[in-house]
């Protein structure tokens, strides 16, 4: 027997890109992405991202840095999203969005400092409004909606962009955030880095959703999938979303499909769980290679420029390493000094104990 029912709601999720894995355009590029300088800038920052990042891993291997999360293979996301953001916008990142930090004018040294175990890495010199990296997965999504609420309250045209991993979308905080963003029509963009792994847990064990963009449907929030290894697709989707957001149309979700071409962090060994064939098959999707192929095919890039770029990037990174290694330690009392605006009386006593013991120690 068949029961009659009426359809009361329908939804669809789309996927888009501009460049295929070989860097061939799959469709005409939008005007904003025809500018040669724009394209080269995206390329340069992806190269910088990969280079500074490899250096961080090397520093960790030689004991000069703590556990570090690489973003290898995923540079198109941070760089593409960051490129589309404006100055007063607020970034509320997780730990693989270094590309956004850099292209928005943040420094490498700050990133090194943080992962080198120094809180000063979060005291951004330029990106004063940006949030520091959130370590507790998905918790940042809620900060983003709070920031967006403040912006909405003040009737500003700024936007908030928050990042999260595929694994992170399983946390309640992510869902609570998109739901609030939906009902309050907040100016916030959620960018999902879908690199198909959450440490050792593959996406297929994280959720049976066909897409992560569809998670927005549970919050009445629009979502789309883009090729996250195509920096042009990421940039364009972000630009369009931020434009709509600034116009008051409310939140949006971009799921960027990519792959984690690295260990989860330097404390991890991905060979224990990532199938080698899978890793191999994604090598040809490399976002840097792809854009270079396109640039070269358009005569916008040549060997000479490549050499110059790598030399410059190398120098930039070396300078950052030097700055990082030569910064004097924080004073011991720094562990007390930023807890409260004014140190409460009970902590003054504890700080004295610390100082007394340091004295004893140094004797």
């Amino acid at each position, binding site marked *: 027997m068949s029961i009659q029912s009426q359809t009361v709601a329908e939804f669809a999720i789309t996927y888009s890109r501009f460049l295929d894995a070989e860097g061939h355009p799959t469709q005409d590029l939008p005007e904003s992405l025809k500018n040669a300088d724009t394209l080269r800038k995206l390329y340069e920052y992806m190269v910088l991202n990969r280079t500074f990042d490899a250096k961080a891993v090397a520093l960790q291997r030689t004991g000069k840095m703590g556990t570090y999360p690489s973003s290898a293979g995923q540079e198109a996301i941070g760089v593409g999203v960051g490129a589309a953001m404006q100055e007063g916008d*607020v970034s509320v990142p997780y730990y693989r969005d270094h590309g956004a930090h850099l292209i928005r004018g943040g420094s490498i040294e700050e990133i090194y400092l943080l992962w080198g175990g120094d809180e000063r890495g*979060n005291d951004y010199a330029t990106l004063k409004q940006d949030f520091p990296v959130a370590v507790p997965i998905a918790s940042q999504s809620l*900060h*983003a*909606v*709070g920031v967006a609420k403040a912006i909405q309250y003040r009737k500003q045209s700024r936007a908030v962009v928050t990042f999260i991993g595929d694994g992170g979308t399983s946390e309640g905080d992510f869902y*609570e955030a998109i739901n*609030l963003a939906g009902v309050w029509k907040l100016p916030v963009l959620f960018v999902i880095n879908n690199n198909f792994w959450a440490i050792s847990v593959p996406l297929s064990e994280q959720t049976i959703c066909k897409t992560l963009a569809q998670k927005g449907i549970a919050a009445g929030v629009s979502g789309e999938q883009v090729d996250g290894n195509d920096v042009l697709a990421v940039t364009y989707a972000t630009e369009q979303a931020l434009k709509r957001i600034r116009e008051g149309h409310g939140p949006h979700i971009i799921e960027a499909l990519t792959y984690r071409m690295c260990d989860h962090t330097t404390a991890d060994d991905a060979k224990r769980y990532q199938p080698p064939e899978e890793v191999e098959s994604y090598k040809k999707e490399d976002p840097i290679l792809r854009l270079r192929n396109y640039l070269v095919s358009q005569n916008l890039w040549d060997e000479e420029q490549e050499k110059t770029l790598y030399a410059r990037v190398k120098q930039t990174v070396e300078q950052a390493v030097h700055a990082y290694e030569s910064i004097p330690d924080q004073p011991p009392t720094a562990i007390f000094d930023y807890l409260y*605006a004014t140190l409460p*009386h009970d902590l003054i006593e504890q700080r004295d104990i610390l100082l007394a013991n340091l004295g004893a120690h140094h004797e």
Partner: protein
Amino acid sequence: MSEITLVEAVTQALAYELAHDENVIVFGEDVGANGGVFRATEGLQKRFGTDRVLDTPLAESMIVGMAVGMAAEGLKPIAEIQFMGFIYPALDQIISHASRLRNRTRGRLSCPMVIRAPYGCGIHAPEHHSESTESILAHIPGLRVVIPSSPTRAYGLLLAAMRDPDPVIFLEPTRIYRKIKQEVPDNGVALPLDRCFLLREGTDITLVSWGAMLTETMTAAQNLQQQGINCEVIDVATIKPLDIDSIIQSVEKTGRCVIIHEAAKTCGVGAEIAAQLAEKALMSLRAPIQRVTGFDTIVPLYKMEHLYLPSVARILNAAHEVMAFE
């Protein structure tokens, strides 16, 4: 001037600050049209508009996490968690973020915010509506935890909390929401945080408590007075950071101390006070300190709640034991 209850004093303080600081935003579940399930936000949405006083969806982690984002952008979020028993889903945002943002960013971003929550037992409500787990919060570096025990202190301390540049958890004892009435001038004058209040001067024994339990504590003090025992009564008020100096001063005078709280005994705030007294005033103690507290049980449903709650009789017993000690 007419007299108002503790919950009305809360409303009065919220209204004052809403009127005087446009960065103040009040939100939570049912705080809008309904004025809060205890009416603590009664009339505020009508008076200040839906931009300033907002209902949120039902999600506590969201309420506090959002407050962190708002505070970092310079607003002064005043969030209500409907009952302390429902603060637990928000503990991650409180512990991992609200209390840490300033320290984590070396002062670049901060979290001036207040989280208000009705707390404690005594209202014949279902399970989870009687929690007093303030010591969990008192353990967390970077927080302030404040508990008023009268309309006057509710008004003055809440104003102070809202003006504090750091996150404050403000726990409102439901049992005395409407028990006491006082004249509370709406003059915007805050009371100091981080300080005890001396509710009664005395020489023989120090009774230390906070929140609703001060009712039983004061009654016990009056009883003891009739028996010739002169109690000093201290309202701790801010349980983090703890004003231990005032308590020590009193104990140095009396030599005897009973700490009274509603929360479960083990690892309650009473333990911290007793420990500090044992460290810093051991030689002044003429008798072992006693703690009269809730038992280490789940707060019973309301038919047996009275067995859980420290009674005047239990306080008197403890005081007598402490006095009798040679």
